[in-house]
């Protein structure tokens, strides 16, 4: 307890900009809620939307595995057969593409919303970093999905990807350490075409495993957030996906068989999945790798710029009886019951509450639940804590306690 109130270390222009963005997002949510209704507002359910789109991508992907063969000779033919001769094959392929595109859109909006409304500081910084680990992985999965048909566009994108991966080797000083070769080794150190395709395939399918695992970790801290879409939004999402897939069907004309002797045709890169590739013709591989790394580090560093406004709860070792009331009430799992520090009390099985600083949202619920006055939020007056608890109760009646509480904190 060095300082009771820690001021934000960068209160200036950045914070004002962020808060104005946050106001815009809140306004958007407000008007969208009038249209969609409070409980089924997709602008407030961006995370659940991402989970749903990942489910759609996984199911359509497994359906496509029934017909795709990852060998250089047969890949294009198998995709063509899937499009032309398999019942609903073209629809499944279009759905896979569309859900991946919508996934990227909703991930970017989710990122923007949680940044603008300040939901990345304090206890949420862990979720922020895990989400940022999943973001480039999903981009790479999208890129490998375009390489998998092993057609002309796939070959061009493969070459671009290789240049970006080996790009760090061209950097001025760090390039001496050959970081790009280390990054590119697991994917590109192959002697023949068949192995290269299998590596890309393993990246696409195995990367999906890792991405799902990361998203599960991202959802996890504290209590389970709203990861489940209401039925109405599911139906709307399915209709949207079907309409887009029907309006922009995938044609076989996209699949030009690779001709090593001809000039590559104009390659239409899909704008959304792995959108940084759009900048490849402008910047080249080396500088683009640098830019991607810079943006990523900047985003991952953001939680450092803001500290929590209200310090975490504090337990009095003398007054705490180890009853566990606060442990049972804490909605964030931020309280642990530990053996008491005093050896005599410990030998009798006496416990004490301990605040896990990384998880504490300073919501004040534990202060209200303690019957012995042993836990408090030192920076807040009693009235403030009471109003917070009342707000939490009200929010619990209305929707869920967690969302509103965390909005009140950061």
């Amino acid at each position, binding site marked *: 307890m060095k300082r009771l109130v820690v001021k934000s270390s960068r209160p200036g222009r950045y914070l004002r900009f962020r808060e104005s963005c946050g106001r815009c997002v809140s306004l958007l949510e407000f008007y969208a809620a009038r249209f969609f209704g409070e409980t089924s507002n997709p602008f407030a359910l961006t995370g659940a939307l991402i989970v749903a789109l990942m489910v759609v991508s996984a199911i359509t992907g497994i359906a496509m595995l029934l017909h795709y063969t990852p060998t250089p000779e047969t890949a294009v033919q198998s995709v063509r057969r899937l499009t032309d001769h398999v019942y609903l094959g073209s629809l499944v392929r279009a759905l896979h593409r569309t859900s991946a595109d919508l996934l990227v859109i909703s991930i970017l909006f989710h990122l923007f919303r949680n940044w603008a409304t300040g939901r990345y500081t304090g206890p949420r910084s862990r979720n922020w970093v895990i989400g940022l680990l999943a973001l480039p992985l999903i981009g790479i999965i999208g890129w490998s999905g375009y390489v998998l048909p092993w057609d002309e566009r796939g070959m061009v994108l493969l070459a671009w990807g290789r240049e970006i991966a080996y790009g760090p080797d061209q950097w001025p000083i760090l390039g001496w350490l050959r970081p790009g070769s280390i990054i590119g080794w697991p994917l590109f150190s192959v002697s023949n075409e068949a192995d290269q395709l299998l590596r890309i395939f393993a990246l696409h399918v195995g990367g999906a495993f890792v991405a799902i695992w990361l998203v599960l970790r991202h959802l996890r801290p504290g209590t389970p957030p709203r990861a489940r879409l209401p039925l109405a939004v599911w139906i709307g999402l399915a209709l949207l996906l079907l309409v887009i897939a029907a309006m922009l069907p995938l044609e076989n004309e996209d699949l030009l068989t690779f001709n090593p002797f001809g000039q590559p045709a104009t390659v239409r890169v899909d704008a959304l999945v792995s959108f940084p590739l759009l900048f490849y013709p402008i910047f080249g591989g080396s500088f683009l790798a640098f830019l991607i790394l810079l943006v990523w580090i900047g985003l991952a560093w953001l939680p450092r710029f803001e500290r929590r406004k209200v310090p975490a709860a504090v337990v009095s070792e003398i007054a705490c009886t180890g009853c566990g009331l606060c442990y049972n009430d804490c909605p964030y799992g931020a309280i642990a019951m530990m053996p*008491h520090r005093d050896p005599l009390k410990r030998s009798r099985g006496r416990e004490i509450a301990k605040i896990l600083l990384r998880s504490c949202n300073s919501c004040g619920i534990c202060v209200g639940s303690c019957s012995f006055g042993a836990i408090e939020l030192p920076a807040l007056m009693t009235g403030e804590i009471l109003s917070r608890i009342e707000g939490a109760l009200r929010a619990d009646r209305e929707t869920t306690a967690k969302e509103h509480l965390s909005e009140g904190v950061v």
Partner: protein
Amino acid sequence: MEACDLFDGMAAFERKRSGLGAGSTSADFLGQALWVTLAAVVVSGIGLLAGYTPTTARSFPSVEYIQLSFPLGWWLRGVHKFGTDLFVILAILRLIRLAYRRAYKFGGEFTWQAAVRLLLFGVFAGVTGYLLVWNQRAFWMGGSLAEAAESGGIFEQVYPLGGLGLSEWIPKGPLGDAAMSQGVLRGVFAAHIALGFLAMLAAFYLRTYPRKEVPHWRRYSNYVAPRVQWLVIGALTILALILPPPLGSHSDTLLKPYPILADWYFLWLYRLAEIVTPAVALTIVGLIFLIAMYLPWLDGSRRKGPRPVVTALIAASLITWMMLTLEGAGWELPNLASLVLTTLVWIIALVLGAFAENWRASGRGKKGDEEVRSP
């Protein structure tokens, strides 16, 4: 040794909580080992994807290539194969422990269901994985699966609309028998990967939302002791070194394979299908699965004590399972009557033992059965 405290995962945990057992950190060996094993299987599976080609012509050569010349391929393949076996063993042991500790009630209902699902996904992922090697054993097993699905035709006659037209889904060869084609291989491959996803989700549910029976359990639910990790990975590596997973020979559709043994966890099913008809065996399997899934609700007692009937039933079914497995593996047991008799004797013994346990627990007072700590 506390790390191997298989059937009383809570004991070490409670000692640590009360501060008496200094340095004991392992609360739940089985759960941790299950989690590490699944992680090892999934990671080695991703590695195997980089070398495996799911086509009839190239899958067997690609598995050979993985085993012999892919970087660390022998290790990946060994960990994947023996990891699945270990996974099934651990999942069964964990289910037995959950039942023995009556942890499928009082907040543990969905944990129990997730554990049952995990076992199911693991077993089916194992079967589909054996088919992917595309050797004679895979050919034989595919034929057996196709026969089982064909017997689904009988199943459909017994139960109208029950089999969902399963027999029509099996691709037919020129002579009308079930054919092992490219389509079957790709379907099995897709199913294998889908089962991997499902197993991962079920295991994550099990680790993330553990039962609420014991307060403060949540704190330890994500913990994996390093020694458990090293034990599992080390054991799998040693197994992969001294017992390379068998390759067999390339699947030859002209050479009808001599009956090869299935996975050890399916031997009981083959034996059961021999004793009764395949359709009845499938019905029994479905019933077992349904009962297992809804056991927490079938066992309606609200009493927090030992559950002698359920414990005895589970033990008896376990004994029956072991005996059928031994018979399926070729052991000569006298006959079915002796099997039933033995099982009955065991059930009676277990019921008596469980009642004795119940009596002992009630004599000691309720302290051991109530929640571990009360405010």
